[in-house]
């Protein structure tokens, strides 16, 4: 109890304090310029302490195995034979292994024969339930569902944005190859080629059953026909999920942002519409008060 221990402790703090400036002195203002890229050192084991990641100017890229919300793999959109074809065969395994049961799959049926077609008619993931566990990706036998690296998903309105449908979930196979090059190669080796398992099987069978393919085409055409009259987005179905809070605080009219756009980037039209609505409301209120 002579204070020496305390002083020693304070020296540790002092050392930390001084060390925060070492990097500044070493690199000066060039610290973040691209030609002095010491990012790796700063984020590695060699660096003293921790360096702040200057998000959003610089972002920590995610390791390959990183998992956030899943996405569905589809063929590249410039695929020579079947552009944009789903890899998912709607086998339902992911829906079964999903621990909080947040995957909903509607299996396609041939409208005439009623037999299942290896393609999901609809595929939903409620990202307000998903626990990012990665089981769906781990157990999918067709490498058709993968864990995405895009964590920038915030939104202003969950009722319309947080049940991901097939369109929102689908991403090109190319994308998977860029975010997880090593694993994509490993999977390719296990599959025996870059193509989808079924596509490879079909290729191996060669033209022997070209007829079958033709039939499949026919089925698809029929299906497209049956689905044609309705194209309302599935989001409609959940848009009315209970939301008492909305009544407490008048929110700006939820403006579903365009795909890929940041939520705050409402279009000019939307903003105008909102303004007009607000004006009208205001006028109505004023009139009421007067009357």
């Amino acid at each position, binding site marked *: 109890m002579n204070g020496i221990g305390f002083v020693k402790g304070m020296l540790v703090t002092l050392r930390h304090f001084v060390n925060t400036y070492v990097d500044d002195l070493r690199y000066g203002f060039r610290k973040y310029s691209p030609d002095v890229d010491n990012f790796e050192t700063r984020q590695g084991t060699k660096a003293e302490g921790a360096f702040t990641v200057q998000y959003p100017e610089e972002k920590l890229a995610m390791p390959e195995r990183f998992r956030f919300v899943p996405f569905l793999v589809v063929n590249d959109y410039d695929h020579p034979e079947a552009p944009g074809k789903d890899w998912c065969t709607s086998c339902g395994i992911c829906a079964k292994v999903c621990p909080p049961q947040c995957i909903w799959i509607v299996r396609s049926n041939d409208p005439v024969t009623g037999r299942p077609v290896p393609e999901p008619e609809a595929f939903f993931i409620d990202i*307000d339930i998903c*626990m990012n566990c990665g089981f769906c990706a781990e157990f999918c036998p067709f490498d058709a569902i993968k864990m995405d690296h895009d964590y920038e998903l915030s939104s*202003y309105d*969950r009722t319309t944005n947080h049940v991901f449908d097939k369109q929102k979930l689908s991403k090109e196979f190319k994308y998977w190859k860029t975010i997880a090059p090593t694993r994509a190669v490993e999977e390719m080796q296990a599959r025996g080629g870059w193509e989808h398992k079924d596509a490879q099987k079909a290729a191996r069978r060669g033209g022997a059953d070209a007829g079958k393919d033709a039939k499949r085409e026919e089925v698809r055409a029929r299906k497209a026909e049956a689905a044609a009259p309705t194209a309302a987005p599935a989001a409609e*179905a959940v848009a009315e999920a209970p939301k008492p809070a909305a009544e407490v605080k008048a929110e700006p009219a939820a403006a579903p942002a365009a795909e890929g756009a940041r939520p705050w980037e409402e279009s000019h039209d939307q903003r105008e519409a909102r303004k007009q609505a607000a*004006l009208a409301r205001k006028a109505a209120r004023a009139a*009421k008060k007067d009357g």
Partner: protein
Amino acid sequence: MELNLAELNRTQYPIPAELQNNVAITSLSKIYNWGRRNSMWPMLFGLACCAIEMIATASSRFDFSRFGMEVMRATPRQSDLMIVSGTVTKKMVVPIVRLYNQMPEPKYVLAMGACASGGGPFKEGYNVVSGIDKYLPVDVYVPGCPPTPQALLYGLIALQKKIDGQSIITSDDVPWYGVGPSDPTPIPILGPDIIDPRQMDMIRRQAEQAARGGTFAVRELPAVAKTAAALPAQKAAPAAAAAAPAAGTMTPEEERRAAALARKAARAAKSAGEAAPAAAPTAAAPLPGGSKPWEESHDIREQRKAAALARKAARASKSEG
């Protein structure tokens, strides 16, 4: 030369009489928002696993003090932002609502993680509230389980952008620029199960119905759906219509339920139609509910719209009276 102030102020906004001579009105809004968004003080308030990531975001590597949030206040009375970081349980929602009511306006709520947004992996649990927006108005939802610190930062930036877009003139954007203080959120009651005071009427009506020998089961729907499925397709739709009481007497929740019922019935009708494809392959088209069962039919949507309008009118007349 006489300055025509009215001319100068030709903005799209209606300007309050006392401010009409103020040329700086739009800039004021900007300055206001700039100040507010750059000095958001979050409440030091952790609920569950997500709170750990929130602490990680606050600490040196991600450091949200770069966004003017360095001061985390443990008391609600000094904070602007409530980061609901984790699972909201029924037992905990009571204090949370109290805390929110104690925060001075302007105040913001950020739902961090799947749990706070919509219940998360534990949604099915008996003590879990499926999303804090059942009780509080949420400004930004950050999905993820847990959202990484960078995802949270992105959400915070989104919140800042949102604040930027708010106007101190059109008070409809945010309640706190309106006239007078806004109402506190009613505090839930821990009864046999959690009771939202806003639903009292409805619970009472349900209980009376039960006393008259009706069912007081919450999950009537699967059973209803089953009977609906048993019915032939043509009968299912009227059954759903009968299940919905006269529109005038419906509470919002009942309307919602009616809508859900109708959708369910429509779904059942659809599957009934599917079960016998040979018999009526073309019958599927005219059925209510669109061809995809999860889409609502035009009628239902119209109904819902009408109900929303009615609610709105009721609210307006209430605030008048």
